[in-house]
């Protein structure tokens, strides 16, 4: 079947199988930031934005995304640049495999709630698993970014 959607701002039409998952579709179109993790919809590694909403691309049919806007980290570099350095400065990750999912969901968090508390950050990122760290580094990084932003204001 043929689908048409917008991937990172670019209109795209492609021939897919009915059971093609969105994760496989975006990776087939060069978006390798989207990682395959648990495949049980628990880890958040495959997070993409569907019409601006963070979803698990391992559990969305590509066919269901037809007619919609899909964004991956490849299309959100500029927005991510604001805070990823703060996360890196904290040495928040070791292997980095979970990083794109964390960054995607942090972008969604900050769009929805530009000034979250630590508990709100923890709650929003609860669906992003990291097997190397204890999550405190990511939290410290986001907190440092938010505090720095407040200082600039």
């Amino acid at each position, binding site marked *: 079947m043929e689908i048409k959607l917008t991937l990172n701002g670019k209109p795209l039409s492609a021939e897919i199988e009915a*059971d093609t998952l969105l994760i496989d579709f975006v990776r087939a179109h060069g978006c390798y930031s989207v990682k395959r993790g648990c495949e049980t919809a628990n880890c958040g590694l495959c*997070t993409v934005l569907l019409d601006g909403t963070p979803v*698990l691309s391992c*559990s969305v*049919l590509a*066919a*269901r995304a037809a007619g919609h806007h899909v964004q991956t980290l490849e299309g959100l570099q500029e927005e991510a640049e604001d805070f990823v350095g703060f996360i890196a400065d904290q040495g928040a990750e070791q292997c980095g495999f979970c990083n794109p999912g964390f960054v995607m969901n942090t972008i*969604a968090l900050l769009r929805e709630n530009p000034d979250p508390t630590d508990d709100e950050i923890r709650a929003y*990122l609860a*669906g992003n698993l990291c097997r190397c760290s204890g999550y405190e580094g990511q939290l410290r990084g986001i907190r440092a970014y938010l505090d720095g932003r407040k200082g600039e204001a």
Partner: protein
Amino acid sequence: MRKVLSINQYVRAQSLDEAYTLCQKKNNVVLGGMLWLKMQKRNIGTAIDLCDLGLDKIEETETAYRIGAMVPLRALELHEGFAKLTQGAMEEAVRHIVGVQFRNCATLGGSLWGRFGFSDVLTLFLALDARVRLHHAGEMALADFAALPRTTRDILVEVIVPKTAGRVVYLSQRNISTDFPVLTVALAARDGAYTCVIGARPMPAAVFADEKGLLAQGITEDSARAFAEDIASRAALGGNMRGSADYRREICKVLVRRAALALAKEG
């Protein structure tokens, strides 16, 4: 790449009649959020998607909220009307379910249609005295729907939550954050009557009334404890990898007592 679910054909239904006709065939499936479905080893003939039917909206009338079957759990979590109607119980019931991305995918219809034993959603909506509307069978109490055979082939169109004045408290116990619950409890007080729903027993949620009138004279430490022990003695509880039946019974006593005391505090 692991691939255990196969779908031969994908159809975005353009009407409920079309979806209903398609779903009469045994190996055709109506899609919800696909989170549970995706993990099954299964060959699906036609996947029927309801996403074009406008079922992703919450409509408020004078007497009820009408929630389309495709409304994601996250929308319920953030809905101000439900926050007020349930005194925060709606958010409490869904906020532990995996993560924001998961709850953006999971639909109310899919959560209720599955009648999952572990369902936080079924537990709360039973306490809210919700009704469902099926395309073919029409409107019925959620409790009646929950008892329908799983072989029922119909389309869950919407869920109706009456705006009855009352109070509700939702509590759950999990072994670890974002895991399935070991036990869920929703306690509602409405029109002077109490409805206690126990879920994740691990069987699907069951509804209990205060048959002995233990809370009739008001909620105190003693009446809350007596009520909790009564519910725990009446609820059929089982064991699974998350907890034994005995453990659930002890948890049941604690959660029901806490729910009753919280209800009294809120009132």
